[in-house]
């Protein structure tokens, strides 16, 4: 069994004038490890390798990265799914500034999330118990609230690459629709009026990279379509 060839994106702002790819050979002993396990093995030999990780089960969204050209979560991506010809190329998520190695600066991504006011707004007095919501109304939130903010979608989106300051991006828009679709939210008009400009929503060109990479199997393109429908219904 030959060793796995891993090509890893390296950049340390204190010592490197430019990023470079470093080659590692890892003996996986034939096991179908997760990519995160592989990175941990590499880090044991070279402690300077930097990457984020937390839950190691695909629910916290820390370890989004680009594996052989496709964004995903390292902790739930088995080698068998990404390795081609015994070779694996690991890069940081594209389109965001790199802090070090696989760690990107997510400030822009979070800024777009904050822009859509990602919290329930309801101007009626709260009842003594919970606000009632039928199972059918609640079902509308499925496929939306599960987003883990890993940024795999937005950083695979060309529209977000070109206009990260202005286009909300698939992750933010998915959350925007999560609140537009919530029967308990009363700020629909305000939310829509914030979205009708030429950039926030309409920069989506339906490329659907977001759908292809979402590690939770969510569909931001569909949510964006629904927002467009709501904007249209609202304005005509």
């Amino acid at each position, binding site marked *: 069994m030959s060793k796995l060839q891993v090509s890893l994106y390296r950049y340390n702002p204190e010592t490197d004038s430019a990023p470079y790819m470093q080659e590692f050979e890892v003996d996986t002993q034939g096991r179908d490890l997760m990519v995160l396990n592989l990175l941990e093995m590499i880090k044991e030999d070279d402690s300077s390798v930097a990457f984020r990780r937390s839950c190691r089960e695909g629910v916290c969204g820390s370890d989004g990265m680009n594996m052989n050209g496709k964004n995903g979560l390292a902790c739930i991506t088995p080698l068998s799914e990404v390795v081609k010809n015994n070779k694996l190329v690991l890069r940081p998520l594209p389109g965001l500034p790199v802090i070090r190695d696989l760690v990107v600066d997510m400030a822009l991504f979070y800024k777009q999330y904050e822009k859509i006011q990602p919290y329930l707004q309801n101007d009626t007095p709260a009842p003594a118990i919970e606000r009632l919501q039928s199972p059918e109304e609640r079902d509308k939130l499925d496929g939306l609230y599960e987003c883990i903010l890993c940024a795999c979608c937005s950083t695979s989106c060309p529209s977000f690459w070109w206009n990260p300051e202005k286009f909300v991006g698939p992750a933010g828009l998915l959350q925007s629709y999560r609140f537009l679709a919530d029967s308990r939210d009363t700020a629909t008009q305000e939310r829509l009026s914030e979205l009708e*400009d030429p950039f926030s929503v309409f920069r989506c060109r339906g490329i659907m990279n977001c759908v292809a990479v979402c590690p939770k199997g969510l569909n931001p393109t569909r949510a964006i379509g629904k927002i467009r429908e709501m904007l249209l219904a609202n304005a005509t």
Partner: protein
Amino acid sequence: MVTNITSFSRSGLSDWIIQRASAVVMALYTVFLVVYLLAHPQLDYATWSGLFEQTWMRIFSLLAFVSLAAHAWVGLWTVTTDYIKPTAIRVGTQSVIIIAIFVFLVWGIQVLWGA
């Protein structure tokens, strides 16, 4: 809300609808012309200019021209804002595009109603 003064309608929603509506007009116009050409395999100049003598055809053509102009502006504006980051070059390019579209539109009208 992202404000922008150079987009066609300053509203993403209007731009989006205009682009789709104009696309439909252009598609209909294209289909019409293709069918017309197929139906007239021995097309000569008299028949062709006769078609464009009709008022309805002139209106249809004008509609297609205006649609093309709007469609082009929305599309090219998007392309310039995607790819051209330095403001001066972007505004310059946008100016060239809008003048060209204006010229082609006026010229088109002149071809239709002139002579």
